[in-house]
């Protein structure tokens, strides 16, 4: 598929169309999932080291940078602010898609200016995530909102869907910005600052589709091979991830069920209101309290509606994101395993080569050699040289792989701690918020009923019917 012929960045004040209420089926739209741009053969993915300049490749310095930056994670020292807002749908002859405005404010020196505003579409976010994952296979990238929610007939252009997605994209970018490694990558910088043309050409410089395919094949092969001596801490991580996946999945389901039940309760409650109103019309003395009752129930309905909406807007997406996170975690652990498997395979190959060499030095293949007119000694020498060369090559490679593995392991360990902290903060605040909103809801309902009670008592007093002792 060829490049979309469209301009990615939409500068303000152009002829982009605001989101209509229903434009499904209007135009042949390309699936946002497609990312089949074929890049020219550029840099292939090198093992371990990333392909942007600002990355330091030595594992030791990497770890140091990690630790250092972890301590300065306070909001006070935050020097970059990113927002995602203002979704707009972009219509062309070929396709329709939504772009979001990404605004950056920063004091970082590596940025040319202090403020940027660009427009990005979902595909671009997907690209960024892919790049970060490739460059850092054992670091944990915050999940993106799902590509297409197949819930019934949700359209990609449905307002609620777009708003939910926008918020998730906002969170995604902010997590990246808060991450000590990711936020200083070139890709991130370009994502935030490049005009559309620039971005498109930068995208092309990345690894080719084919090379990425190759990487996937290698990964599959590695996973088939399996890891022999996985360090215990990574096994522990694996077990944790499996358990966590279950728990967060359950929480997600439970929360959604609660929202459903609340909605149904709300429906019934709503039905009570007109009945009380109807009743009040056939009463005299009771007309006022019955009408009052109807009003109270109506207010409570409104409060319930508000509460349900808040749950939907805050708790549900927060939990859902961590459900998506579990996939990321599993992938990261898998990739780490693959790197180790690769290393183990190479180690084995080297050992075999060495064994070959040793064996070789003992074998006399006189017959063939004399046939081709070489002296046994010469041949032996040649062979030994060749093997030595090969072995040296392999050993060099193996050293690199060992470095890579060590780096991957350490990166994962640090990021794991980091992720746990972030997870804890995120989920804690989601639940604290939920609890607070529930308290709020009950407080509001309490006020409604207390004022009803008060009005009934004063009314009764007024009618001289009550002996208030």
């Amino acid at each position, binding site marked *: 598929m060829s490049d979309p012929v469209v301009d990615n960045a939409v500068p303000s004040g152009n002829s982009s169309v605001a989101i209509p209420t229903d434009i499904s089926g209007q135009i042949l739209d390309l699936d946002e999932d497609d990312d089949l741009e074929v890049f020219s053969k550029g840099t292939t993915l090198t093992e371990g080291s990333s392909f942007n300049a600002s990355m330091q490749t030595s594992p030791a310095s990497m770890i140091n940078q990690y630790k250092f930056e972890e301590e300065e994670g306070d909001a006070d020292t935050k020097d970059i602010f990113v927002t995602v807002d203002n979704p707009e749908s972009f219509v062309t002859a070929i396709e329709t898609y939504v772009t979001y405005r990404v605004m950056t404010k920063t004091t970082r020196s590596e940025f040319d200016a202090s403020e940027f505003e660009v427009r990005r579409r979902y595909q671009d976010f997907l690209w960024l995530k892919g790049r970060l994952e490739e460059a850092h296979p054992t670091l944990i990238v915050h999940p993106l909102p799902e590509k297409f929610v197949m819930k019934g007939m949700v359209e990609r252009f449905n307002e609620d869907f777009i708003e939910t997605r926008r918020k998730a994209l906002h969170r995604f970018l902010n997590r990246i910005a808060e991450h000590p490694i990711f936020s200083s990558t070139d890709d991130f910088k370009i994502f935030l600052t490049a005009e559309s043309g620039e971005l498109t050409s930068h995208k092309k410089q990345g690894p080719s589709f084919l090379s990425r395919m190759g990487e996937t094949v290698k990964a599959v092969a590695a996973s088939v091979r399996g890891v022999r001596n996985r360090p215990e801490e990574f096994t522990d991580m694996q077990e*944790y991830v499996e*358990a*966590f996946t279950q*728990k967060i999945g*359950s*929480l997600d389901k*439970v929360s959604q*069920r*609660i929202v459903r*039940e*609340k909605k*149904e*309760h709300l*429906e*019934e*409650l709503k*039905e*009570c209101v007109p*009945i*009380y109103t*109807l*009743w009040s019309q*056939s*009463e*005299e*003395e*009771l007309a006022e*309290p*019955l009408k009052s*009752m109807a009003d*109270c129930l109506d207010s409570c309905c409104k409060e319930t509606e508000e509460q349900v909406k808040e749950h939907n807007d805050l708790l549900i997406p927060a939990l859902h994101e961590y459900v998506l996170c579990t996939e990321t975690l599993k992938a990261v652990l898998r990739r780490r395993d693959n790197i180790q498997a690769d290393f183990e395979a190479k180690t084995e190959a080297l050992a075999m080569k060495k064994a070959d060499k040793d064996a070789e030095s003992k074998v006399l293949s006189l017959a063939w050699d004399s046939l081709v007119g070489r002296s046994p000694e010469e041949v032996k020498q040649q062979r030994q040289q060749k093997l030595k060369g090969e072995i040296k090559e392999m050993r060099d490679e193996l050293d690199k792989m060992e470095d890579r593995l060590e780096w991957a392991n350490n990166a994962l360990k640090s990021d794991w701690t980091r992720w746990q902290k972030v997870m*804890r903060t995120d*989920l*804690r605040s989601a*639940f*604290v918020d939920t*609890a*607070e909103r*529930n*308290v709020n*809801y*009950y*407080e509001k*309902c*309490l006020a409604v*009923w*207390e004022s*009803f*009670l008060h009005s*009934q*008592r004063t009314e*009764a007093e007024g009618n001289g*019917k*009550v*002996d*208030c*002792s």
Partner: protein
Amino acid sequence: MADSGSEEIAVIGNTDLTPSESENNLKNTMVEKGTNLLKRMEINVAEAEKRTGKNAVNMQETYTVYLIETRPVDAASEGTNPVPDSLWRRYSEFELLRNYLLVAYPFVVVPPLPEKRAEFVWHKLTADNMDPDFVERRRVGLENFLLRVASHQVLSNDKIFYSFLTEENGWKETVFETGFQAKADSRLKALNATFRVKNPDKRFAEMKHYGDELQSVISQLLRVRARAADRLYGVYKVHGNYGRVFSEWSAIEKEMGDGLQSAGHHMDAYAASVDDILEEEEHYADQLKEYLFYADAVRAVCRKHELTQFELEMAAQDLTSKKQQREELATGTVRTFSLKGMTSKLFGQETPEQREAKLKMLETQIEEGEELVKERNTECDEYVKSAWVDIERFKEQKDHDLREALISYAIMQISMCKKGIQVWNNAKECFSKM
């Protein structure tokens, strides 16, 4: 008829009335009304028990009996606490009493019994008559019924009612001896017949219409309320799942573990709290049900008025036609078409002797007819008077009771909200320690 405008005791006190407390308040209200009976005697339906025995068709059956306790009022105030007189009655006997009262006092809006079968149930409650919760609520309803009757100026003086409370054996026979059964059957037939009244009392027509509306509205309300209770139950109980998952999750976390664990406990508490909440709501439903059945009683009284009015109109109509016949016979003119006229045309006039005999008969009939009309007129007037008094009494009682019911509903909602605030504040604290 003594006036029922005595001061009513405030049922509105603090905001934390439990259902049993508000029941007591209702009792006190009725007791304070001060009928002679209640001045003398305290009435309770204290217990319920299961019995088995042979029924009318000689089959084994299980049924519930209720213990009615009566105690002289003075004894309690004197400080001595004598053992109350008591007897056991089953639901069917209460029904018999009520049917008797309906026939004996057709102008009274007779208090209803608690429902025969559980209706408007939401899923947790069963419709099983043997279910202990149902039995308990029925016990309360039966006590309420007895107190309502005992606090009614007219009904409380009834001897059959008194012996219902005091004579265990032979009461049934006494009731049947009154011969009310025959009247009951004819009453039922009459009430269900369709007839058109020319001049009903407007107030009764309006009241009947009101009874219809009240019945319709309360039925709707009870139905929706039952569904809402079901849903609310679901909301609360699903939170129990949070409790379970939090507890499991806390096992794999280090720092978050404690906060999660304790938050989980609060979620469990929240889920469990719905049982009490819905039990209290059931009490509100029972209060509504009482007036649902009262609506029926009101309609019956209005219907009876229509019946008496109709009978008066019939008698008057009959009288008029008889008078007309006399006139025709006397003057020999046939004004209206009649079989008599036709036959006389065909077969010739009657003899003067026959005419004389007929005239005499008509005169007697007219005399009787006039007596009947006078009787029925008086009946009608008296009925209208006494029924309307009771209807006014009923209206006041209804306004008071239903207002109280709404207030206690509000109190219950307030308590539910307060509990919710407490639980979620606690949960919030635990979450913030996560």
